[in-house]
Every structure is written in C-alpha cells, then in structure tokens.
C-alpha cells in the first residue's frame, strides 16, 4: 500500500512537470495578477539598492557644488578672469586653452570665452557670467549654463540639476517632471556661503527597475510555476488515488463474488447429492409420486447450480481471466459428443434432436474445446428448453470457404422482433419466455457471445416469434 502511494506521488510529480513544461503558455494569463505583487517586491529591492546609490550620488553632488562654488567665487575684477581660465583648465585637461573675453553685452557685465578643444580644435562658446562690483547673484548668474559647460560629462551621469536660492525659488534648471514620483532619486546639498540649494535628480531607480525586470519575470515564472506544479501534482495524485481505489474496490468485489459463489455451491452440491442418492434408490425404493417431486427438486437445484456457474463465469470473463487454451480440435467430433449428451434431455422434453454434417472429412480448427462446448451447450439447452413438445432441434455443421458454420435451429417459442437487439446482453430474458415461466436467468447468451468473440467468430440469430429461432455461429478456420 505504502509503495503504491509512493509510486503515485512519483507519477504525479512527473506528470505535473511534464504538463508544466509542455503547457508553459498556459501561465501567461495568470502573470498579470502576480505581476502586481512582484512590482512591490521589485520596488522594495530598488529602494534598498538606491540607499547605496544615494551615498554615491551625494558624493558626486559635493564635487559638483564645489565647482559651482568655485565659479561663484570668481572675482568680478578683470584680474580674476585668469583665475577662471586657470581653474577651468585644471579641471579640464582635455582643453588646450581657454580664454575669456567680454561679450557683445555691456563689457562690464559679461565675458565671452572661446574654448578650443585639443583634438579637433572646434570652438565651443561658453557663456560665463561675470559680475563687477556690487554683484547680485540672484539677478545675473546663469548657473545652468555654467554647470552645463563645465561638467557636460557629469550632467550626463546625473540626469538633472536644479539650483534653488535660500528662499526656495528655482534659480537654475527645468521644472519638468522626469517620471512617476518614487522612481527618481533626489539629493540636495547646500552651496556654502550663498544659502543656495543644489538639487540633483538621478534616474537611477528607473535604471535599476529596468535591470530588475528580468528578475521580476523570473520570479513570476518561478512562483506561478511552483503554484501550478503544486496544483497539478495534487490533482494528479487525486486522480491516481481514485484509480487505485477503483481497482482495489473492483478486486474486492471480484473476490467477494467468487467467495459468495463458492459458498453458494457448497449447500447446492450437498442438496444435489442427497437428492440424487434418493433418486438412485440408494436408501430404498421410492413411490412414483415421491420420485416425481424429488425430480422437481433436483431440477430446481440444478438450475441454481447453473446460475452460480454462470455468475462465476461472468466474473471471470469480465476480469479477463477466463483462461482460454486453444488446441486443434475436430469440430464434428465435439458436436457429435455434445449432441449425444443432450439426447436424454431432448427425450424428456419430447423434442427430436438432429445432427447434420457434411460427409467429407473436415480440417481441425484451433479452439478452446471446453469453452466452445460451454457456448454450444447453452445454445442447445435453450433450443430444447424453449421448444414445444413434438418440436425439433437441428444442429448443422458445414464448412464454407475458410469458415465453419454451426447452426442450431429450433421450432420453439422464438424471440419477439423488437427485443432481438438485446438478445446478447446480460440478464436479458424475452417477454414471451418470462410469461411461459421457463426457468432461466438471461446469462447464457451473454457468455456465449463472449466465448465466440474470443474465438474471432461471430454469432447471429434469426427468429420468428412462435415459429422458432436459428442461432448461427461462424468460426474462422485457423
């Protein structure tokens, strides 16, 4: 039992995995639900990562602000221009030279500085705001351009820089939102000496988020996959358990029926033997009347024996262990013996029994003689039992091409036309024989058909109610 359970689990898991791998697309409709959960999970990861990033960001910001401060600190005096140039070159070794000259604007307010690049010598104009004495940073400084000019590279890395004055007014930078809140990391730092705030926004989370998309998808697939495997394993197990239970029940049923049939046989056999010894006058002679009634008991008992036999046979047929043994058999001999065995019964029923066969010797055929005998006995028994006194039963054997044809023809009660289709089903008894009160249980023809089918043959019936029936068995020559 425990081993069977183990097998069931192994089968169920294997079945579940096979199912998952062959039907992965099934999962797709379910991903959306899980996606929401996964998104929360992903944001949490991003937040943790960004705490680290914040640290680096602030470091970079400090560098930037120092630069800003440097520029702001530039002296408005003409003499300070050199200082700016020098500082600029210090920070940007890629520039060959830098020179700051006054712009077209009032020369006391601005300088224009042409900058030459070391490699292609292209001129880049950097507008550097300069203020003479009494400068007011709020009004004249255009820091965005300063920052943009001096740290293109850094700007590229940082995303966006905004600078606010001490009162929180935006001095430099755009106010456009970059994306949904929470996805952009911000850092602020005060510019010393001015009371200004430099705000740097870093789209770092968005970058991380993209990176985590792959992780998220994997997580979804694993979660959904696991859930599905679990469900499938469970259902497979359930199905297999039901099948196992079914099998056990079936086995128990068969064993029970076999036992029951055997238990029924024991008293039937004892009854049979008791009555038979009485009928055989073993214990002294009987009067005619005693004998008549005892014979009836004996007949009834024999019918019970047959019913139990039929039930046992049906159990074995349905379990597929009827135990066929095919041997080359002389059909004519088999039938001859069978018909001889029925002579007594026919005589008692006052029915004439014929056996006709072709004179030519017939080839032997591979059949199970015991089972075939059982089948043909049933047909003959029916033909005699459901006949009229002075009726006829004719058994015919002939070989037509590669087939043997055995026909059992009677002049009995026949079968109602509308019931012909149910003739070979279990427990079927035609209305007319039920009315006649002829004993029988409707199991015989079911067994007959099973046996003939197993021989690769066919059985057919023709009948006219009140006139008789012909049962034809066709067996292939093999």
């Amino acid at each position, binding site marked *: 039992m425990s081993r069977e359970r183990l097998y069931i689990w192994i089968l169920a898991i294997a079945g579940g995995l096979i199912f998952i791998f062959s039907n992965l697309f099934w999962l797709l409709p379910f991903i959306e639900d899980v996606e929401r959960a996964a998104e929360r999970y992903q944001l949490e990861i991003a937040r943790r990562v960004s705490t680290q990033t914040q640290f680096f960001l602030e470091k970079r910001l400090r560098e930037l602000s120092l630069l800003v401060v440097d520029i702001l600190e530039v002296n408005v005096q003409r003499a300070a221009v050199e200082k700016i140039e020098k500082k600029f070159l210090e920070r940007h070794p890629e520039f060959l030279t830098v020179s700051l000259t006054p712009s077209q604007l009032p020369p006391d307010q601005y300088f224009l500085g042409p900058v030459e690049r070391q490699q292609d010598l292209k001129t880049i104009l950097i507008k550097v705001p300069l203020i003479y004495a009494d400068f007011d940073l709020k009004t004249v400084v255009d820091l965005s351009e300063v920052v943009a000019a001096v740290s293109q590279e850094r700007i590229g890395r940082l995303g966006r820089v905004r600078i606010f004055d001490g009162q929180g007014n935006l001095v430099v930078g755009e106010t456009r939102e970059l994306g949904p809140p929470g996805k952009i990391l911000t850092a602020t730092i005060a510019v010393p000496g001015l009371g200004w705030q430099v705000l740097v926004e870093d789209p770092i989370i968005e970058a991380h988020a993209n990176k985590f998309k792959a992780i998220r998808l994997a997580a979804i697939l694993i979660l959904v996959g696991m859930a599905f495997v679990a469900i499938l394993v469970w259902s497979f197990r359930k199905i297999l358990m039901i099948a196992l239970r079914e099998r056990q029940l079936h086995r128990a049923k068969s064993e029970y029926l076999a036992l029951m049939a055997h238990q029924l046989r024991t008293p039937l056999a004892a009854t049979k033997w008791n009555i038979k010894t009485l009928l055989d006058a*073993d214990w002294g002679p009987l009067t005619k009347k005693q004998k008549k009634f005892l014979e009836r008991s004996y007949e009834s008992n024999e019918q019970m024996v047959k019913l139990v036999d039929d039930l046992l046979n049906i159990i074995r047929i349905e379990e597929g262990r009827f135990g066929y043994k095919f041997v080359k058999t002389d059909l004519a001999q088999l039938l001859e013996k069978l018909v001889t065995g029925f002579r007594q019964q026919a005589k008692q029923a006052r029915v004439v029994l014929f056996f006709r066969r072709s004179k030519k010797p017939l080839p032997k055929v591979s059949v199970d003689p015991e089972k075939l005998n059982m089948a043909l006995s049933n047909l003959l028994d029916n033909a005699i039992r459901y006949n009229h006194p002075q009726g006829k039963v004719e058994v015919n054997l002939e070989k037509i091409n590669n087939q043997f044809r055995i026909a059992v023809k009677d002049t009995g009660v026949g079968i109602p036309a509308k019931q012909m289709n149910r003739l070979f089903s279990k427990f079927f008894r035609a209305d007319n024989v039920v009315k006649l009160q002829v004993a029988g249980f409707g199991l015989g023809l079911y067994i007959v058909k099973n046996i003939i089918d197993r021989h690769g043959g066919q059985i057919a019936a023709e009948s006219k109610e009140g006139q008789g029936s012909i049962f034809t068995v066709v067996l292939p020559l093999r």
Partner: protein
Amino acid sequence: MAKIILVIEDDKYMREILVEKLKKEGYQVLEAVDGETGFKLTTNHHPDLIILDIILPVVNGFEYLERIKNTDASKIPVLILSNLGQKEDIDRGLELGAKDYIVKAHFTPNDLMGKVRALVG
C-alpha cells in the same frame, strides 16, 4: 478383504453421504474432517484410495497433497472432490499428483462411484 477408502471432507452432510454410499458399495471407510487428521490417518492406515476436499480447516487439500508427496503415501491414488471448479484449481490439484478432480456440483454420486471403482477395483 475390503478396500479402505479415506474420506477427507469438512462438510458434514457431504461426508455422511460419501461414507454411506461407499459402505453400501462394500468399501471400508475412514473419515477425517481436516487435512491434519487426514494426514495422520493416511500414514497410520495406508488406505487404498483417498477422496479429498480442498477447502479444509487446519491443513487444506493442496497442503495435504504437498505433505504426502515425499512419503510412501504418495503412491495412494487421490481423488479430489471439491466445490472449487476453476481451471487454476483443477490444474493445481492434478499437478500435485491427484488422479482426478471432481467438481461436486457438476457430478453425481454415481459418477464418483464409477471413478472410485476404476481406481481401486
């Protein structure tokens, strides 16, 4: 001298009929209700024929046959008389050395007597 027949049968009615019928035919009859007693009677009395049931208490018919297989009792003819009528049971009984197998419900007392006579005369 009358031939001795040992009847090993647990069903009381069946055993009574067998015993009566065999006595009537002039045999000397021994009775046993189970395989164990049957085996003791076999070794002590050495009957001429054994009529054996299969479903028996203590030691069943098949076990009984296996037991006598390696003794001098193995030469005694055994007639199985049982309610088990399946092909497997019949084959097993004959394989274990029984001379014949009779399904109770399918044979009459006279059929059995015929077989008994054929085996012991």
